[in-house]
């Protein structure tokens, strides 16, 4: 029987706790079971409108380059493989496997039925008020592999 002490400062480690994906998935699961599917969508829209407000402003001002930088940052942090195809009017993001889904599958966490909304609804909310619209063209629930497209809205 011994006494152990561990002292760490923030600078000793990189901030990357992927189990948080499991906690978010549990939250989405709880919201759906307690309040229904629309509550999940409403919550994710509210989150995007508040926390990603600076990103939304940037998308409204700069359009596709701002979206691309946002996704490049996300997939770089998480070590995900994402390919980008960009024209003046369209950005397509091809994700080989969602790092969040893969982490949860590898560690035995339940992936909520509506976890896909962390991509679809958040992307749609990011584009609200901008000249662009978001579509989730493909999504594999097992791996989170996806094709996400952002296109300029048709002018009237």
């Amino acid at each position, binding site marked *: *029987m*011994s*006494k*152990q*002490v*561990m*002292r*760490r*400062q*923030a*600078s*000793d*480690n*990189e*901030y*990357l*706790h*992927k*189990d*948080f*994906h*499991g*906690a*978010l998935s*549990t*939250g989405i*699961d*709880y*919201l759906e079971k*307690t*309040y229904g599917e629309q*509550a999940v969508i*409403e*919550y994710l829209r*509210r*989150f995007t409108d*508040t*926390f990603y*407000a*600076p990103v939304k402003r940037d998308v409204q001002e700069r359009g596709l380059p701002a979206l691309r930088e946002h996704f490049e*940052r*996300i*997939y770089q*942090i*998480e070590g*995900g493989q994402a390919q980008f195809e960009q024209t003046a009017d369209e950005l397509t993001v091809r*994700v080989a496997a*969602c*790092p*969040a889904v893969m982490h949860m599958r590898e560690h035995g*966490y*339940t992936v909520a039925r509506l976890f896909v909304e*962390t*991509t679809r609804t*958040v992307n749609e909310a990011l584009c609200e008020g901008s000249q662009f619209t978001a579509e989730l063209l493909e999504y594999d629930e097992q791996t*989170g592999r996806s094709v996400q497209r952002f296109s300029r809205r048709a002018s009237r």
Partner: protein
Amino acid sequence: MIPCTDFIPAYSELFGYLEHRGGKQAVVGFWHYIADNFLGNLRELVEEHGIRGCWLYWMRTLNEEAADFQMELDEETGEFRIIMYDCPSKGMLLSLTHMEPYDDYCGHCPVLYSRVLEPLGYEFTTDLSECDRARCSCTVRAKQNP
């Protein structure tokens, strides 16, 4: 995708959304749900290793969260302690200038961990008196036999 580095604001907003839908009772109901459905790894480690399971659990989580902390384990007295000098979660929320954190954000810790540890024979106590500066402490102690 929401990256894990953006989870804490998402968690805070979830607490706020739940309170908006069902009051504080709904928030606490979620905290119970997450303790029962997400913290199985803490439960399993303590079941297998006793109080050392706390050390093993928080050694991973606090290092991955890049916390500024001290952890102490005394297996002789059956006590485990965390002194949090700068909580990365609360620190992040306090640093955000464009959103308001959930006012009882730190309240989830005692609810979650008590719910996991008390049925296993441990009491979990916290001092949140400085949580508005992202500082706190908690102690896990084996319950005395009656």
